[in-house]
């Protein structure tokens, strides 16, 4: 199947954008925000929270200039990974909560996409401080630990052994050249001298100097340096690549190429990108950054915080919840790295990963134990990837009941990047109570007969209702259990629907329709680009999205290839000064 590229125009239909795959390139920063306060996983509308959709412009809404390079704060994951790599404490997990990284559910902007907008409050600052002290104390816990990090044994606080360490640590942490008389370096040296004197050891001096460094804005925020020709300099390229592929600071090779400026050579830049990708493919421990992108995009970061009604689902315990999350990770890495499949496989997959608990939940026969193993899906299996995974179905449900609204909205907003505006303030958004024993589809249909509601609901309900085949923890079912006047009824489910003119009979066919919708390829391109840049896109950047998307669909639809192209694209390596 060849996917067409779609022009970036907005079509307004009774308050809802429609048409296959049309996308607002600014991701809503121009006021085309989606639903109100409830966010993606709830779907009920608690009042008209937002102003009307589809109006305003960037300039009206705060003067955000087109394509400006903003200062990005590290996400929580980036902070932790950067600290681990900087101090060589790979197992470190902060005991304190880190500052809220923010998320913009309304515009499906995920933590890294709002990194240019979050502000550190005093409460948040104190959390950085506590985490910095924790990490430094761990890294410099003993003299042996200190010597291991320095590579030499300092005789005093002003020893070259100490100064050299501080130079490289701050160069790596800040991604810029540090001269011997740099004020930052001199201040850190002062800390070492002062602390050594007061506390009696160089080790403690270094510990405090690194505590200081970890709270420094140049470490906690990334603001690329202009190369004077519309691009970012070699050090900034190094950090940009490290953040994209590792959630971290530059490794030795990137730092060396930054130092001698060789990353400015496009051929060497390509080689480094290829190296980072190859390491990711060869070494599962290097895949964390990519996994987190998907976890955030698909709301899978919250799997282990999901709660279920113990009466309805006695089997839903910590072990099952953990297995759901692990399954998704193994399955995704299998598609992306082990087999490097066409990206549509995330929706149309022939393989799942199960242990004994998940096999029981999925109704898969065979002998299993605690270990998750790959199983090939039979042709008559109702399951085929993300949308039929237990993790997704559990997150996009209420404690006892399914949420067709949340599931449908996920497909429309997260997978197709279409904005669904909030219901008008005048509309009663309560789904009517059952008049008889009737399915959610029946109740929804009475709810959406109003034409002003129908246009939007048509964009999400069919997908959500087809997923009614799976209950609130992802078990397959053919009937919906309905309570009415104290009695329970098993009513047959109607899972048919249509997406942009493509009819489907059940959720498996629905997943195929979504995967082949032009909006899907465009959406993944758009999300990855925003994630990489750490900001929303401006309308002027539609050309870049078009180019990247075209390359993606003209090729094998390999996600790894898409990452490569995003990393080397001029938009990723450009610089526009802010006002």
């Amino acid at each position: 199947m060849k996917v067409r590229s779609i022009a970036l125009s907005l079509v307004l239909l009774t308050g809802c954008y429609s048409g296959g795959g049309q996308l607002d390139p600014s991701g809503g920063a121009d006021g085309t925000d989606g639903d109100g306060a409830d966010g993606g996983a709830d779907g009920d509308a608690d009042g008209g929270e937002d102003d009307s959709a589809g109006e305003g412009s960037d300039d009206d809404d705060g003067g955000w200039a087109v394509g400006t390079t903003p200062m990005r704060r590290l996400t929580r994951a980036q902070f932790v990974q950067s600290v681990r790599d900087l101090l060589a404490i790979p197992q470190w997990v902060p005991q304190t909560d880190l500052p809220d990284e923010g998320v913009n559910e309304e515009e499906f902007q995920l933590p890294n996409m709002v990194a240019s907008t979050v502000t550190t409050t005093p409460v948040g600052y104190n959390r950085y401080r506590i985490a910095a002290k924790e990490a430094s104390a761990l890294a410099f816990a003993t003299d042996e630990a200190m010597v291991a990090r320095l590579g030499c044994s300092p005789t005093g606080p002003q020893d070259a052994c100490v100064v050299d360490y501080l130079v490289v640590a701050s160069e790596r942490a800040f991604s810029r050249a540090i001269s011997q008389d740099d004020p930052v370096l001199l201040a850190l040296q002062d800390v070492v001298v002062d602390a050594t004197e007061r506390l009696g050891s160089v080790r403690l001096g270094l510990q405090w100097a690194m505590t200081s460094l970890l709270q420094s804005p140049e470490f906690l925020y990334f603001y690329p340096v202009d190369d004077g020709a519309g691009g970012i300099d070699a050090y900034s390229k190094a950090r940009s690549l490290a953040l994209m592929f590792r959630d971290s600071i530059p490794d030795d090779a990137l730092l060396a190429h930054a130092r001698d400026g060789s990353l400015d050579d496009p051929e060497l830049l390509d080689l480094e990108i290829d190296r980072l990708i190859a390491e990711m493919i060869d070494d599962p421990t290097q895949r964390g950054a990519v996994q987190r992108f998907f976890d955030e995009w698909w709301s899978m970061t919250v799997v282990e915080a999901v709660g279920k009604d113990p009466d309805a689902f006695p089997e839903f315990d910590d072990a099952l919840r953990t297995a759901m999350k692990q399954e998704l990770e193994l399955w995704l890495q299998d598609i992306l790295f082990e087999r490097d499949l066409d990206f549509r496989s995330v929706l149309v997959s022939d393989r799942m990963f199960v242990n004994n608990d998940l096999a029981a939940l999925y109704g898969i026969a065979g002998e299993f134990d605690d270990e998750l193993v790959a199983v090939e899906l039979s042709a008559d299996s109702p399951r085929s990837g993300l949308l039929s995974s237990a993790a997704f179905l559990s997150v996009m449900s209420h404690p006892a009941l399914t949420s067709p609204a949340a599931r449908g909205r996920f497909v429309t907003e997260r997978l197709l990047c279409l904005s669904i505006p909030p219901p008008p303030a005048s509309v009663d958004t309560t789904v009517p109570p059952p008049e008889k024993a009737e399915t959610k589809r029946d109740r929804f249909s009475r709810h959406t007969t109003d034409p002003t509601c129908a246009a939007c609901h048509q964009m999400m309900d069919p997908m959500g209702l087809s997923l009614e085949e799976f209950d609130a923890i992802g078990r397959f079912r053919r009937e919906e259990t309905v309570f009415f006047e104290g009695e329970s009824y098993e009513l047959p489910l109607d899972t048919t629907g249509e997406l942009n003119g493509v009819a489907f009979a059940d959720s498996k066919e629905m997943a195929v329709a979504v995967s082949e919708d032009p909006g899907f390829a465009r959406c993944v391109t758009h999300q990855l680009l925003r994630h990489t840049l750490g900001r929303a896109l401006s309308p002027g950047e539609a050309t870049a999205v078009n180019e990247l998307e075209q390359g993606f669909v003209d090729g094998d639809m390999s996600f790894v290839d898409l990452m490569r192209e995003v990393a080397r694209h001029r938009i990723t390596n450009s610089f526009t000064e802010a006002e």
Partner: protein
Amino acid sequence: MAPKTRTIGRRTMLRGMVAGSSFVVGLPVLEAMLDTRGLAYADGSPIEPVFMSYSWGSGVGNLDGLFDHWTPTGVGEDWELSPNLSGLAAHKEYLTPVSNMRPYVSGGHHELRATVFSGQHRQNDSYNGNGAYQGLGSDRPSIDQYIADRVQANGDDSPFHSLVLCMSDVGRHYNSIGRGHSFSWRENFTLLTPETSPEALYQQLFSGFSPDPEQGGLSPEAEVELKALDAILGSANHLRARVGTYDRQRLDAHLQGLYETEKAIEELAKITCELPTEPDGSYPPNAASVEPLIAKNIAFSKLIAQAFSCGLTRSIQYMFCGMQADPVISDVGATDGIHLLSHNDLSGSGDSQPEMIDAVATYIMDRLADTLTELRAVEIGDGNLLDHACIMVASEMMDGRRHSGNDGTPMMLIGKAGGRLRSGYHYRPADDAPSTVRNTSNVLLTAMQAMGLDDTTIDGGLAEDPGGPIDELLLEV
């Protein structure tokens, strides 16, 4: 830092300092230093009152007049606790329910939260300087932040500007992550994420700093940390010279945190105070979103009482749970979360929902009663912390099932604020009283006055302006 033998109120202690060295004195606190009423020091300087706002999301079960289990019966000094408030009976002399008030704003959780807790709400969505959606909120800080700002501007030297805490951990990750999970914010609606772990709060208050009372000054570690914090400014300056206007503001916000930390280190070194017992264990929700909230609340409440009595802060925001959050209160038999219970179309359990919401509301007030018990156990002067506290209790709406401001707002003031605030009193304007009288902002203004501020109005840009502080509830000291 070794545990000290006895607790002593910080300001009392400061007056016991001689030439920079502090000493520890046993309770009861220096009664000789107090005036005859125990509300001020012998030299006439008052014991400063402390403020807390206590909140929870989605209101109480009071739907469509099915029942009203929130509003007390009777008015003035002759009143009876409602069923929801029954758990607070032991503290009735400190309670001042304020009924029949309205925020005079249309909208849902977010508009109502902004108005009830700050007196102002933003008319439109807005975007910050880097293009991020900020949602519907308020341009004024929330009441806890406003009061903290004002008392600090008036020369208060508490180490912590304010504390923002939350009992329930559910709702922090799910749904609109963070957006509904706070009742505290700065200007321009920068929400302050609450601390949800008593252990982390303990670390923040008592472990992160190392005053040296033996020397009456900063410990060597504290001196070094101040040096380490100063060293950060070089990096900030380097970045500040390059970034745009909006990002400079973000950097300044970062540095504000640094300055407050430095101040906290310096001020804490002047304090001698008993270390409370470290909270034992954590309190995570289980797979059914059930948390050990009774124990967790008591752990938090002990730390709150200690933070106030040691003079660590003058203002705390403490919330039971956020808006649209779904902690499951299994102690009252609920199997659905609080927000879900308020949506009859979503719950699958068949719980009798108005009754279940009602039971949850009573449960929330029972937890508040436990908090008051802890505050009351701390002696200050010849009274206790409640004699010197002003606590504003509110949810953003009366009933989550309607989520409308027109149904009124559950609100209450607690404490005597050093004699400034009337208590043991039910204030309830008549249904036909003008909007100036029934305005929820009047309660904010009353709290501000009780805290010694001189505010008489809030320019909230609301449909109806507040009439001002409620004279009936304010007493001359």
